[in-house]
């Protein structure tokens, strides 16, 4: 049996099918959480944003425009929620290192955590409009066109922001000795 697409799942959700919503949740909780985490640099805040995003989505499913792609609507809400939290905080959280047990050796674990922390630290030095394109491109795997849809900006702007963001990240990593 083929997997139902997002539009079908949304239609079922609107009719009150919680299972359909759970399918969407399973599919998108990780990218939404990662987007929020990369924006906020704090797992607890990212959890709160993830909860808020999915509750908002559920409550507003009937206002979803089916001519858009679901993920672009979802990611836009996630990034906006994260930006709202950043606005309220106006501070940077210290990096959290929470080792994940995925069968790696301790050395691999440390190297992976260090790399992640360095990239995250560099990312936090970049302004939010540049950070969002990096997150969409590198952490959520969006194409230029998809980024343009999520952020509602022309593809040309996506390209120029991504170019600038990468320069900023390179400079930040160079400054930190990488």
């Amino acid at each position, binding site marked *: 049996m083929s997997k139902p697409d997002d539009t079908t799942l949304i239609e079922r959700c*609107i009719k*009150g099918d*919680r299972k359909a*919503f*759970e399918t969407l*949740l*399973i599919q998108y*909780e*990780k*990218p939404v*959480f*990662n987007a929020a*985490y990369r924006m906020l640099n704090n*797992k607890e*805040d*990212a*959890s*709160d*944003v*993830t*909860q*808020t995003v*999915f*509750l908002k989505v*559920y*409550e507003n*499913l*009937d206002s979803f425009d089916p001519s858009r792609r679901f993920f672009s609507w979802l990611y836009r809400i996630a990034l906006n929620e994260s930006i709202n*939290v950043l606005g*309220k905080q106006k501070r940077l959280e210290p990096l959290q290192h929470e080792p*994940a047990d995925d069968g790696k050796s301790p050395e691999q674990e440390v190297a*992976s955590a260090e*790399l*992640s922390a360095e*990239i*995250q630290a560099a990312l936090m030095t970049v302004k939010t409009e540049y950070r969002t394109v*990096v997150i969409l*491109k*590198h*952490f959520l795997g969006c*194409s*230029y066109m998809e980024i343009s849809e999520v952020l509602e900006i022309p593809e040309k702007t996506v*390209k120029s922001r*991504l*170019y600038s963001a*990468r320069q900023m*990240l*390179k400079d930040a*990593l160079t400054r930190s000795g990488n």
Partner: protein
Amino acid sequence: MNADIDGEIDQADKGHLDEFLAANDEACALRAELETLCGTIDSVEAVSPPPHIRHVIMNAVKPTPTKTESPGILDILFASPVLKYSATFAAGVLLTMSILSSDEISHRAFDDVTGLVGTISDPISGDIVNSISVDNAGVAGQVSLRRAGSMLILDFDLVTNGPVEIEADYRDRSIWFNGFAQLESSGTTISAKSGSVTLGMEGKRRYAVYLQNSGERDVTVNLRFLTGGEVLHEASLKFEPED
């Protein structure tokens, strides 16, 4: 160059870029640098969300979305996790005081209670010293242990599928149960005796249990989550004072 690395360059531009790179070593080096940077970012692994998050969200969504009813204060608090504990505690103080005056809570086991919610002067501050996640079909969420001076605070943020009893056993009889705060106005019961506190709950709950640890001693709080007498989950939270 960026579009080339991202695989989003068209054939015509690709041809121009290749010609340019062939004639320009500096540009080649720049491209290589950029490619390394992109590869490095792409190699960063995705972070997994906390295991209980799906349960929490599914428990919070209503069977059918309704927009006509205006939400009550508890609905607003529950629907906005960013409000976090400061808001939930503030509501909890008032609601708990009214619960304590009702017959819903068993008073028989309060012999060792030294104080209740009103004795806590600064309930929000306190450093998390330990926390555990619970991801079980019957109960999911987090329990954290905070320290605020000589007070130890157990924060429960849980969702259950049915009635669940939680035993918090701390053995050391020099540690006293000092208070309790919760958001919900009904459905949670609490009883305390020397060395342990027992809570009964159902659904989504956020509450805090306050323990007085005047001697600042090492404490291990053993938690048992039970339903119908059957143990669903067991965990421990440890506090060790700094030297």
